[in-house]
């Protein structure tokens, strides 16, 4: 185990990202500031419309219209300011320093290329030869649990969902990156396969001491695997900290509610807390706290004044002006 590295793998500062539509520009990410630690698994939890995938795209500098960065900076590995780099420079570090396992890996492999040709394409773009690196590919496949090499001669549509996901992970790791972003790595997979992939991810992270950023809507899954967890809502990070802190003593009510409203195998007969309402979308953005319109503990101040960000250690912080008072009212939400 590597001893505490202080330098964060990814450092996001004041990031604002929007999308263009017919009615103008809608800002989705609002002043996101977050440090992702090295050699750990960090989970970003959020529901649809929380901006988590937008954040991942911004970190990869994968910014295509109608997406648009308004302001902010992203520093990767302490020295690469990705947003101010040009495409050539970014291509230099993509895959090599910072890699990506896309959402819906089902559709992420070129349908008319065999698996080996996809490896070939990625290696060729670095001026590397497929055949002289064949051992590297074999090892990468072994890493993700393919013992025979038959898979290299198959087309993506001939693979099952779980196999495709493994292939994508192998391709993403072929250039030996230190930082990997995974966007919903288990969505659409069978529950049993999902568990295997999670174990695989955990093992790979340990073996290669990767800095891993996993983005998912499945908060239960994130708590099973991550060391740090950021909870996003309406384009802001409401809370960030180690999983133990969030699990046992959340600072923001949304974290608490989200975690406890998910039924688990042991929650039979228990009453689960409810989060009333729905996320209202980015068009009708509340003046104060983003979550105030649905928060059962919200006061008028919450609705009017944006809450301050409170940092409590190198990474951890939360946004909530009613901590710790809301904790006393927790019982209320179960009734």
């Amino acid at each position, binding site marked *: 185990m590597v001893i505490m590295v202080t330098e964060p793998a990814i450092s996001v500062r004041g990031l604002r990202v929007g999308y263009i539509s017919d009615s103008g520009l809608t800002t989705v990410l*609002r002043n996101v500031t977050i440090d992702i630690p090295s050699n750990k698994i960090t989970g970003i939890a959020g529901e649809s419309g929380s901006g988590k995938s937008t954040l991942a795209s911004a970190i990869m500098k994968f910014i295509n219209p109608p997406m648009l960065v308004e*302001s902010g900076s992203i520093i990767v590995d302490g020295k690469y300011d990705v947003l101010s780099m040009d495409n050539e420079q970014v291509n230099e570090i993509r895959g090599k320093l910072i890699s990506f396992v896309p959402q819906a890996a089902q559709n992420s492999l070129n349908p008319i290329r065999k698996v080996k040709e996809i490896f070939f394409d990625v290696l060729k773009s670095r001026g590397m030869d497929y055949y002289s690196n064949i051992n590297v590919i074999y090892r990468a496949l072994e890493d993700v649990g393919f013992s025979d090499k038959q898979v290299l001669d198959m087309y993506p549509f001939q693979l099952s969902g779980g196999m495709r996901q493994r292939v994508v992970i192998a391709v993403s790791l072929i250039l030996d990156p230190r930082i990997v972003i995974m966007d919903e790595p288990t969505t659409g997979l069978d529950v049993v396969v999902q568990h295997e992939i999670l174990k695989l991810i955990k093992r790979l992270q340990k073996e290669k001491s990767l800095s891993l950023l996993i983005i998912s809507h499945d908060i239960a899954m994130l708590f099973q695997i991550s060391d740090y967890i950021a909870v996003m809502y309406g384009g802001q990070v409401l809370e960030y900290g180690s999983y133990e802190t969030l699990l046992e003593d959340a600072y923001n009510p949304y974290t608490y509610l989200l975690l406890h409203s998910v039924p688990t195998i042991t929650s039979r007969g228990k009453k689960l807390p409810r989060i009333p309402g729905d996320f209202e979308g980015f068009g009708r953005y509340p003046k104060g706290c983003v979550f105030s319109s649905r928060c059962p503990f919200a006061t008028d101040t919450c609705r009017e004044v944006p809450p301050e960000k409170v940092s409590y250690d190198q990474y951890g912080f939360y946004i909530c002006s009613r901590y710790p008072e809301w904790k006393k009212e927790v019982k209320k939400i179960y009734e």
Partner: protein
Amino acid sequence: MGVSRTKQRERRFRINVDKQSAFYSLLQGIWEQRISRVGLYLLLGIIVFCTIGVFYTPYNPNQTSFPRDLPPSFQHLLGTTDYGQDVFSQLLVGGFPVIAVGILTGLIGTFIAILVGITAGLYADTIVDRILSGITQIFLIIPGILIIELIGAYLGAISIKLGYFVILGALSATGWAWGARVLRSLVLSTRRKEYILSSELIGESKMNVIFQQIIPNNLPFIASNFFFTAIYGIAGLTFIYYFGLGSLTQVNWGTMLYWSLGGEAYLRGLWWWYVPPGLMIGLVALSFALINRGIDRVANPKLREWNIKKYYKQIKENNGDNGDGTGNIS
């Protein structure tokens, strides 16, 4: 509450434009794309031009008393023909039937395509579908225009030339196959969608499903097919006249092309005789094609384009006073 009640009442008693309906969003899509708006203006201009021709022409288009082969001048804006007719007057008069045949071919052809395509799609893998798809395939593989020419040639034996209605019928009867095939596959994929299954489970009749759900959901394609078939209609019409199979008693852009060809205008430098009708036919078809591109983008939002620079400018302008958290620039 009170406000929404009155709103509902308004909805009941006024003809209102539902801004989210499939039809409206289609019109909006056409209007928003610059290229299809150009097409719309172009079509409007041509229609106005041809409508004028119905009521007014500088000279009688059938009059043959002018000097022959005059180049364009102020007396004869587009010169005269080898038979001493005024080209501009002929151009004014000759557009209406061409556009009418085109649009009507589009309408009738699309109607047949809907009928055949949707029936085949709904009864997929039954004998009905096999027969309809078979007929569709035959019309797809053997071009309708070729069959029309063959028929026209045989009719020539008994000295029958094709009139407007026969041409319209023949073009509509042969121009539906492509639309029917695509509609069939669209219906097949729409039918698997859960909202159609849901209607089936709730007990909707097939007719209701077709008219309330399948057609509105495939409206962009149907509209695009209309223009596509209309282009076929116009092209087909010119071909029929080019081969001399059409009735030559009336003046239209097709007959103008036929006579100019017969007079070997292109070998004698009489460009004002054949270029104007050719250009007009081209422009009508072009306007249809341009409008079609706007529809394409409603059906397939991935084809959309964004002007990023404009928004960057806006951000720069708003950067100073955008701290209130609303963040909406409009």
